């Protein structure tokens, strides 16, 4: 594969990884908020389906549909062992959103976790997105 193809694929992968991370973080946050505001939800499929009509749960589901398509597009050219760790930066985005949007306190332990995840994502991000791009 030529260097230009390599660069194009890396840029395309980074763009869709950002879409995937943002839609996943926003979707899970809306879903969690919705489920917790509903209180105890029954175990039956009907109870879970009924919960889908709560506005925050519905918004979460819509964002997770966007995530599904972005994730599928990424996996059409990139390795699972690349996509999965790179999109883990979402855990860091969630922690920062908690700090800056919700005013949560980030403990030293959490900061250590943020540093470890960022280092791990950076390390995996330095590998070619697809196995066939290896030398």
């Amino acid at each position: 594969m030529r260097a230009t193809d390599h660069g194009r694929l890396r840029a395309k992968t980074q763009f869709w990884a950002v879409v995937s991370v943002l839609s996943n973080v926003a979707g899970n946050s809306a879903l969690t908020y919705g489920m917790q505001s509903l209180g105890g939800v029954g175990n039956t499929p009907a109870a879970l389906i009924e919960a889908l009509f709560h506005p925050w749960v519905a918004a979460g589901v819509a964002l997770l549909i966007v995530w599904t398509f972005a994730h599928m597009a990424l996996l059409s050219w990139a390795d699972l062992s690349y996509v999965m760790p790179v999109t883990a930066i979402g855990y860091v985005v969630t922690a920062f959103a908690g700090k800056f949007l919700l005013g949560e306190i980030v403990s030293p332990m959490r900061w250590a976790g943020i540093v470890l995840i960022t280092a791990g994502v950076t390390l995996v991000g330095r590998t070619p997105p697809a196995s066939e791009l290896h030398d």
Partner: protein
Amino acid sequence: MKWFLVVLCMISTTVGDVFRSLGMRSHGEIHDFRPGALGSALHAIVRNWMVIVSTCAMAVSFFSFMKLVSIAPMTFAVPMSAATFIPETLLARYLLRERVDWRRWTGIALIVIGVVFIAQ
């Protein structure tokens, strides 16, 4: 109930991701992101049996995670969601035949430890 949901969520996520990767790889790289072209790609993808298996597994994963966050704190649910990284990487290496070099293994190990820290 909590641990049953964790195991169900882990197995269904792993199966969903591996089959999604297999299905999308068999479809080939998506080049054109215009609505018409995306519609055609989607039409082909939804008839791919591996994508269908993946979607069913992801639905199980979604509902089990939804139930898990309603009965367990996020500090428990979040690190559990990262536990799938290890079986998925092993399957990516040995089933999908991906090239998982030392940077990927080390990066994944750092992420899993980091997720456990972040959930404290």
